[in-house]
Every structure is written in C-alpha cells, then in structure tokens.
C-alpha cells in the first residue's frame, strides 16, 4: 500500500476543489492507501463546522468528516486560519487526525508520501 499526499488552496462552495479532494482521498483510503492532506490558503475554511446541508450540494464538512473517519490525516495552515478569523471554528480532533500546522508540515508530507497531488 502506498502513501498519497494532497495539497489544495480553495475554500468550499465557490470551486470544485474541496469536493474533488474528498472524493480522491476517499477512493484512495478505500483501496488501503494512506492519505495526508494539507489545507493551504482558503482551503482551511473547508473544514469549518456547522456547514448547513443543502439539497443537491455536496456538503464539504461531511466529506472531510468522512475521510477523517476513514483515517486521513489533515493539517491546516495556522497563519491562513488566523488571518481569516476562522481559527476557532474548525472540525476538532474528535473527528480524527486533524491539526493546525505550519508550512514545514507540508515538507514532512512531501518527504513521507510516495506521490503528491495538488487540486487547483
């Protein structure tokens, strides 16, 4: 089994990136691969709590909770959260291995995974 790193930059509900991240991560986890995700720039807002479910729209919070429950590791750029004022509103570690982190953690993900994809 292999290790997949995923980096992305976009927040939820404006562009498709968050949904694609969830779907590729989910498929990789189902196949037994490990998945480590780094949320950079607006992408940190993908894991905010209390995202209201709306019919026909893929709920991004649920998508991330699902991959966390399947064992994905998620790291959130600290400064990106701070500057956006959303530091206190993220999915917490009860949901899985999700943590605030710095950019050096992306270097660790690059080092410790077999492939890194970015979803733009």
């Amino acid at each position: 089994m292999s290790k997949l790193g995923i980096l992305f930059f976009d927040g939820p509900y404006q562009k498709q990136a968050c949904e694609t991240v969830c779907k590729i991560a989910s498929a990789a986890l189902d196949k037994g691969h490990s998945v480590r995700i780094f949320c950079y720039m607006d992408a940190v807002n993908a894991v905010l709590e209390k995202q209201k479910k709306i019919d026909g729209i893929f709920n991004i919070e649920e998508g991330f909770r699902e991959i966390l429950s399947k064992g994905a590791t998620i790291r959130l750029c600290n400064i990106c959260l701070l500057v956006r004022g959303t530091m206190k509103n993220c999915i917490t570690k009860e949901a899985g291995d999700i943590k605030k982190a710095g950019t050096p953690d992306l270097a660790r993900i690059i080092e410790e995974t077999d492939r890194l994809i970015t979803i733009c």
Partner: protein
Amino acid sequence: MSEEKKVVILLRQPPHGTLYPVEGLRMAVAVSADFDPITVAINDAVYTFTKDVDKTMYSTHMDFLKGIDLDIFVDKKALDERGLTKEDMVDQVEIKDHRDIVNMIAESSVTIPF
C-alpha cells in the same frame, strides 16, 4: 529518500491581485528545510521578479532563498511575450530558455503550482 526528491515550486500567476506567488515563495522557504526546491516562474508570474514591482510581501522570502543558494528561474519565453528584458529583472533570478524551463518541470518529482 528525501534527498532524491526534486521539488519544483511553480509560479504561474501574477504577483498581485492574488496571494498565490507570495504563498508559493513562503512555501519554497518552508520546504527548503528538508529539500532543495527550485522556484520556476512562467507566464504572468515573471512579473513577480521585475525591479519595479512592489515586493513588500515577499522580498524576505526571495532574500532567504538567495541566502541559502536556492535558485529562482524565469522563463525567457514569458518575458519575450510581455516585452520584458534582462534589465527589467532583479539580480536574484536567472533567466532560462523555455526549453530549460520545460526540462526542469519535466524532471521534477514533486511540483507545487501556485
């Protein structure tokens, strides 16, 4: 293993209007702790390294990379298309032919596009 990975930070967007190039250079700095990333500017990202652009947000990143001998390469084709010349660019960057830029990207094992 980590020594083998060739990391390319690929800047392709202009330096203002979005935070992408700034964040790309911040990422290059961060990644430099474990790798020797090269930074490559193509398309409108070449404007990031003109002498006259406001570099307040990223000059420290540029200086840091320069200080540890990490290269920033700029695509000559992108300069030509915009009427920019070597004289318009800062000293910290090296201008390369498009063929060389393509090869750098092609030979990378990890590309991070901004």
